[in-house]
């Protein structure tokens, strides 16, 4: 049950009503006060004060002052008239309710309108601000453009001026030079005349004629150059300086960002060449060069050439133990085995070589041809002619122009046909 506040005092003037409402000990905030144009309510639960005003007031301009235990209202009347009393006397419950609701609705509407108005003004402000900044930026840009343009024009003018000066200077020089040239020619003529006059009395020997060349660029420069040459030192005596370059494996230019990649590539290359499996105890007996697979391969080749096949095989064996990834070792060992008629071993080695020679690229064509031919020969000698023919045909595919391989392939074909005919 709300407690009604009924103690209040009021007085009025022609245009305003002054209402003071004591609210002892209560904390009042603006939220507790609700006022529309004909209704005033102060609600501080559980206390409530309500007044249906005699006449409408201007609620936007009216004020409420919250003081020490008292609220002081200044209500401006809409119509300047004298009120008989603060509130409407004959107010029945329904009217009261209706008025209350109306008041609330009106307040709502007003609030809405206010927010709308606020929004609109905000938008306008934003737009205005945007336009203002745009204008400023535009002005700034223009200013810079103008500066640049001015500079450009200034500079162009200077350039033109300078150019004119240059042209004038050149013309002057040219005229001067021509003048000088004519002078010199005249002088020479004079001298010559004197000489001729001197010579003539003696005898008319060499009559040199001066070629009076026209005053074009080349000639006067020749005169001045002759003078200058006497001041220049002689050409240097030829010499060579020998230089060394910081070594670089790759033919491309050096770039820092690529150095890491290049190092990696080189590292991989050296790894591929270095000893793969090392049996330390046995290898200690060997000399330094005997540990190098390439050196051993060369040794083996030499022995093969002299016909010492067993020794060659030994050399290749050791080389393979040191580095089992070098195809030439297997190829050459296969050749040795062929000569030694170790046909199965020959086949094994050729096969190993072929394995290592993947991927098939033009670079290892020769090696692959050799491998196929050797394996084919081994097969044929074992009388496995079909396999042999297969290998020979593979060899032919890589190198179709090799006549020897063709001949041998033909032979094998005949052999096969011969045997099938028999059986």
């Amino acid at each position, binding site marked *: 049950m709300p407690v009604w506040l009924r103690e209040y005092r009021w007085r009025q003037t022609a245009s305003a009503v002054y209402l003071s409402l004591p609210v002892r000990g209560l904390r009042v905030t603006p939220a507790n006060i609700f006022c529309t144009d004909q209704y005033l309510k102060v609600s501080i639960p559980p206390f409530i004060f309500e007044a249906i005003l005699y006449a409408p007031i201007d609620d936007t301009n009216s004020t409420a002052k919250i003081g020490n235990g008292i609220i002081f209202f200044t209500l401006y009347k809409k119509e300047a008239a004298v009120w008989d009393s603060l509130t409407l006397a004959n107010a029945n419950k329904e009217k009261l309710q209706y008025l209350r609701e109306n008041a609330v609705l009106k307040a709502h509407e007003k609030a809405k309108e206010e927010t709308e108005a606020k929004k609109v003004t905000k938008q306008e402000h934003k737009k205005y601000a945007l336009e203002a900044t745009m204008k400023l930026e535009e002005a700034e840009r223009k200013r810079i453009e103008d500066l640049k343009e001015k500079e450009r024009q200034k*500079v162009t003018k200077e350039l033109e001026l300078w150019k004119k000066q240059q042209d004038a200077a*050149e013309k002057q020089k040219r005229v001067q030079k021509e003048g000088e040239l004519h002078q010199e020619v005249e002088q020479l003529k004079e001298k010559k005349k004197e000489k001729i006059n001197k010579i003539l009395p003696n005898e008319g020997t060499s009559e040199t004629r001066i070629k009076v060349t026209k005053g074009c660029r080349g000639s006067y420069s020749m005169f001045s*150059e002759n003078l200058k040459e006497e001041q220049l030192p002689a*050409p240097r005596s030829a010499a060579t300086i020998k*230089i060394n370059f910081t070594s670089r494996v790759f033919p491309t*230019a*050096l770039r820092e960002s690529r150095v890491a990649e290049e190092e990696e590539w080189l590292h991989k290359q050296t790894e591929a060449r270095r000893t793969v499996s090392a049996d330390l105890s046995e290898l200690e007996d060997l000399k330094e060069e005997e540990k190098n697979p390439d050196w051993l391969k060369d040794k083996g080749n030499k022995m093969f050439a002299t016909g010492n096949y067993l020794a060659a095989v030994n050399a290749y064996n050791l080389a393979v133990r040191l580095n089992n990834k070098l195809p030439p070792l297997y190829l050459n060992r296969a050749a040795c085995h062929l000569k030694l008629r170790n046909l199965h071993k020959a086949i094994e080695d050729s096969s190993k070589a072929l394995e290592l020679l993947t991927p098939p690229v033009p670079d290892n064509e020769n090696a692959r041809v050799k491998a196929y031919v050797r394996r084919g020969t081994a097969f044929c000698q074992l009388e496995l002619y079909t396999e042999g023919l297969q290998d020979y045909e593979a060899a032919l595919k890589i190198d179709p122009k090799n006549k020897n391989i063709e001949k041998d392939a033909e032979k094998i074909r005949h052999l096969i046909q011969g045997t099938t005919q028999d059986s």
Partner: protein
Amino acid sequence: RPQVVSHAQQALNYTLFDCKWVPRSARLLCLGSAARGSGLLQLYELRGGRLALLREIEKAKPLKCGTFGATSLQQRYFATGDFGGNLNIWNLEAPEIPVYSVKGHKEIINSIDGVGGLGIGEGAPEIVTGSRDGTVKVWDPRQKDTPVANMEPVQGESKRDCWTVAFGNAYNQEERVVCAGYDNGDIKLFDLKTMSLRWETNIKNGVCSVEFDRKDVNMNKLVATSLEGKFHVFDMRTQHPTKGFASVSEKVQKSTIWQVRHLPQNRDIFMTSGGAGSLHLWKYEYPSQRSKKDSEGAEMGVAGSLSLLQNVTLSTQPISSLDWSPDKKGLCVCGAFDQTVRVLIVTKLNKV
């Protein structure tokens, strides 16, 4: 701050490799390679805001580089190096037959420089060429067929391309040095008076361009630009017996720095041109003390510092050639691989 203002530009229908101002004039030369595989030399004049073509000369082989450095101001003969390794000196008034011609190298001449002409420097005029065949040769136009100095690799040594050469230290009649940069990052300094290698170093990236700040003084500074957007400035006044010359280096973006050119009127300002079509204007500031003693008492140089004055991007293609006008401060021409030659003016260089 100095501004780079574009004054004129001209679209060409050939690949432009080098562009040079004709001394004492408002004319410039462009040289390069035409699509049909011949060399082109074009003479333009700056008129108003445009370039007017005065003369076009076609030669058998594409031209790579050229210089006015070794001729007198009256003659203004132009020396060119071409793709076939030939060095020719042309009189532009009568360009049918060269004034001097020699097949100097087995492969393309990448770079050329001249000294002793144009009233700059003392001593005999000489031309140096650096080629893909790994040799650097110095020529005297008065001596036919043989170079007066030849810097070649030792017998059996695999060669590296020489990408750039420059003269320096020509302050009297005897002194002269040649600096050469190679594609493996080597920079070598040859002393022509003693005919020996005076200094060498490796800057870890192929050297695209070297230039002394002045050819005709006691060597002061050397700028070397390289791949990967780096360049080094060496202080050449103090050579330490083991450490060589002190240097400061800068990295500019990631693209190759194709050229460096010092302003003829102020030797502490230079412009670098980059592979991304950009130009950077730099100023070198000297340190308070240019040399100091190291722990053993030997003199060691101290490098200064660099500041970037201006930076502008003109093209999407590399700017491969750059030349300052010796007559007008701030006027420069640059040629790029987008087949355009541009004339630029750099302003406010007096107040730097």
